[in-house]
């Protein structure tokens, strides 16, 4: 497993756990929710930088030569990015901790709150699809990260394949 892939997996895992914590401001508290989300935005920028080559390549050959699955993945990633930006903006507009701590008062209204709630719920759907589309990569990376168990089960001495049943 390359160092870059290990870093990617680690960063994604940290971002995902942080996202789960920040998804419920009633339990974590407003300050944790807001500051953690800002930190997640930084992690997402790192995530995009690590996958920059894929983004550039897909943008170049989106309409020329790419599979439908790759196109769906590309569109879904853009939707996820736009949705993330909407969450950040609406979150800033209704902020009760971060923005006031800088001495700024924003004219907030119900539209921003509605947008924040809608985009957060939509993010859960998009996140589920994002994980599903990258499931084989995640599975392979985890297998490579913890190869011990895999090797033990594949050892010839303890292998019970279909040949035994057919014989």
């Amino acid at each position, binding site marked *: 497993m390359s160092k870059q892939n290990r870093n990617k997996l680690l960063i994604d895992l940290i971002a995902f756990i942080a996202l789960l914590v920040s*998804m419920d401001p009633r*339990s974590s508290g407003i300050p944790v929710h807001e500051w953690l989300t800002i930190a997640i935005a930084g992690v997402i920028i790192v995530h995009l*930088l690590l996958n920059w080559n894929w983004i550039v390549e897909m943008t170049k050959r989106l309409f020329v030569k790419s599979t439908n699955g790759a196109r769906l993945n590309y569109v879904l990633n853009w939707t996820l990015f736009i949705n993330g930006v909407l969450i950040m903006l609406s979150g800033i507009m*209704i902020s*009760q901790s971060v923005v006031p701590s800088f001495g700024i008062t924003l004219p907030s209204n119900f539209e*921003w709150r509605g947008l924040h709630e809608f985009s957060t719920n939509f993010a*859960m759907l998009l996140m589920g699809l994002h994980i599903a589309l990258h499931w084989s990569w995640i599975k392979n990376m985890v297998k490579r990260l913890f190869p011990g168990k895999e090797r033990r089960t594949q050892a010839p001495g303890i292998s019970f394949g279909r040949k035994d049943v057919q014989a």
Partner: protein
Amino acid sequence: MKILFRILVILVVASIIMGATYILVNMSGTSTSNRPREFTQNNGTNLQSPNGNFNPQLDRQRERSGGIIGLPFSMLGNLAVISLIAVVYLNTGRLFKRKPFATAK
């Protein structure tokens, strides 16, 4: 330098989306009526927000329920929802890829 340029690209794209959204939300905000909104609590008291703006007191009361003990449960709940979506998508994809029937020789 290359990384800084890439970060700048990401921030510029995000700023464009934010700007467009800000304009759209403000346009829709001015088009809607500015009559005060009323909310009734469980105990019957009314919480009124002046000029259609959201009421921070009402907002805090809504946010206060839960607590740190509820955090693992809510995390698990959100994880379950995301996992369910992923599982449904993965299995739907497999369902469409699968051949209808295996033909006997």
